[in-house]
């Protein structure tokens, strides 16, 4: 007897193929599209996002082709509170959040999973590119599409109710399979950016919610070299858009080194000053096996991977990188891997 599986269907090609595969494997599958906006038109128009009426229809059409029941669940309130408001608050606090990761942690594998379990489902399946076997999460065979990073925050309990049917396939294979199965979303463009920021203008989105507040841009010595319209418009490691008219004494480009929300100060400096080797994190989530061979850490989505070692402190984690990293922003997740297997994660608090 198969499992009762809720397949989260965004309207994209990945989740459609994921649903088709588990249905074909003999499980009792129900497709659910998550409506994340109370007013869907206000989100991205076109076929790139995951929040439009068109996406909802694409998901329904795919479910019809697969031959599974399909429903729309209204998750707009939870999404607003746990993802959008969290996103704004994190920026206001000088940190750089990852909303996709937060959505997995708080919506797909929390609110949706809880509701699914209460309604008698055994698991939630998604079209994420990651492998999951016996509750152990590891990278997709397609390194360019691997999404284990944004799933690395899930607990063992959450992972025990998750199914990721695409981890052994490349994106190209998934598209080919979609076409073979007659799923019309086969050639739909990949989604990028942040689904709730329709025009991709994150700075404008934040300015609208947090307001403009002029503040100083200072160098490492504390000297004011420019001004800005709100510290929330900046991310550690950012080089473009600083609008400093005075060149640095050595003529080299300047980067955002840190953001101090209380004094609304942005500190800039040379690239060399961005390099860090010690990363301090909050309480870790251990969700993988005990093995500690070939340890690496990934510090942002689709980011570089660094060899590392780590020590657990009282209520956190200190990670020592094998070579320096640049642009490490507080608020992002540090996901630890042993080889290609995720062993745990923690939120970055500071780096030096």
């Amino acid at each position, binding site marked *: 007897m198969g499992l009762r599986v809720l397949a989260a269907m965004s309207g994209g090609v990945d989740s459609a193929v994921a649903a088709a595969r588990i249905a074909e494997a003999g499980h009792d599958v129900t497709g659910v599209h998550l409506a994340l906006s109370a007013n869907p038109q206000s989100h991205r128009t076109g076929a790139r996002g995951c929040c439009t009426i068109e996406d909802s229809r694409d998901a329904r059409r795919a479910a019809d082709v697969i031959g599974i029941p399909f429903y729309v*669940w209204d998750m*707009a309130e939870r999404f607003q509170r746990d993802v959008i408001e969290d996103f704004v608050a994190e920026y206001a606090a000088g940190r750089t959040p990852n909303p996709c990761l937060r959505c997995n942690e708080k919506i797909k594998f929390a609110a949706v999973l809880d509701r699914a379990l209460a*309604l008698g489902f055994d698991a939630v399946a998604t079209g994420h590119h990651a492998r999951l076997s016996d509750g152990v999460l590891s990278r997709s065979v397609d390194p360019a599409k691997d999404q284990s990073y944004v799933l690395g925050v899930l607990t063992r309990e959450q992972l025990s109710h998750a199914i990721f049917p695409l981890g052994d396939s490349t994106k190209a294979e998934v598209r080919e399979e979609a076409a073979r199965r007659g799923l019309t979303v086969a050639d739909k463009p990949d989604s990028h950016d942040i689904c709730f920021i329709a025009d991709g203008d994150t700075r404008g989105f934040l300015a609208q919610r947090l307001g403009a507040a002029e503040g100083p841009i200072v160098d490492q010595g504390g000297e004011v070299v420019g001004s800005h319209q709100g510290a929330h418009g900046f991310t550690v490691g950012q080089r473009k858009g600083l609008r400093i008219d005075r060149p640095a004494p050595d003529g080299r480009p300047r980067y955002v080194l840190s953001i101090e929300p209380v004094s609304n100060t942005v500190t800039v400096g040379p690239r060399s000053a961005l390099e860090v080797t010690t990363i301090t994190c909050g309480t870790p989530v251990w969700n993988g096996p005990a093995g500690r061979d070939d340890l690496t850490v990934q510090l942002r989505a689709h980011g570089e991977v660094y060899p590392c070692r780590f020590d657990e402190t009282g209520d956190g984690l200190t990670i020592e990188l094998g070579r320096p990293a640049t642009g490490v922003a507080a608020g992002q997740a540090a996901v630890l891997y042993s080889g290609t297997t995720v062993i745990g994660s923690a939120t970055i608090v500071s780096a030096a």
Partner: protein
Amino acid sequence: MLPEAIEAMTEQLKRPGNASSLHATGRRVRRVVEESRETIADALGARPSEVVFTSGGTEADNLAVKGFYWSRRPRRRVLVSAVEHHAVLDPAHWLGDAQDAHVELLEVDEHGRVHPETLRAAIERDPDDVALVSIMWANNEVGTVQPIHVLAAIAHDHGIPFHTDAVQAVGQVPVSFTGSGADALTLTGHKVGGPIGVGALLLARGVTPIPVLHGGGQERDVRSGTLDAPAIAGLAAAVATAVKEQEATARRLGALRDDLIRRVREAVPGVVLNGDPVDRLPGNVHFSFPGCEGDALLMLLDAKGVECSTGSACSAGVAQPSHVLLAMGADAAAARGSLRFSLGHTSTSDDVDRLIEVLPAAVERARRAGLG
């Protein structure tokens, strides 16, 4: 579809033609259309000339609401009940948004009834400015049947045209167009066991709304478009059959409905029956399940082979609390936790048994899942 309707329609599908043509084929098709018109008029207490064929209920409602408003300019008040179907409500709101109309929603009581005094008081606030009144014969969600002839008479006291959407009523309760006193009445094929995509507006003689569709003027110059003779033949056969069998159907479904209501109340303590307890459609049962989300319950019942409906769905498929239940005074949570069980000519007591078998566990589970 009723076998009579399928037969009448397929017979005509084999013999295409345009009822407006003058040649022999046209005459033959015209005869089918006119006989269908006579059949429908006869079944619903109207004159044949009062039957205006449309593409269905939505078009008929639009023609009545917009057409009466335009023909009654410069009057601006549009009075519609708060529990109308969107096919009446949305044209009315469009008139308000785009055509300077003053749309006033007539309040209903906790059972969804429009009280005659409510209509009278609304009209008398400024009778000379009222363009039209539209109140449905029976509600599609909660099944409440309105006292149409009383309401129509109040509108006529002031010379105001009265439209009623009787899509849900035809074949379920006795419907006489002349007896109701309404100036316009909407019906549609698929609600009487006929084809989808065909309906009619019964339009009293001498009443001329401005058309919504301009063109060949085929239907009394009020509605244009080549007539769909096969669909019209199917509609007529369905209306005739449904009306002929109305009394027997109402008796059978009414008994099934009362049994369903009694057994659901026993099986699930705390359920609330919505709609008028007495004056309701024989095939309609509508319950609120406190602590449940209707969507969750629907999904669980669907998985067990029981098909039912929640309120109206918005375009993205996100269930919104029903405007009908909200107008009846329900709060948003109660409105979201409601389901309609419709009984039709294929429903049997086995269906009720099946529902009672699976409902308590589904409610229990939906309650555990909470209100989302």
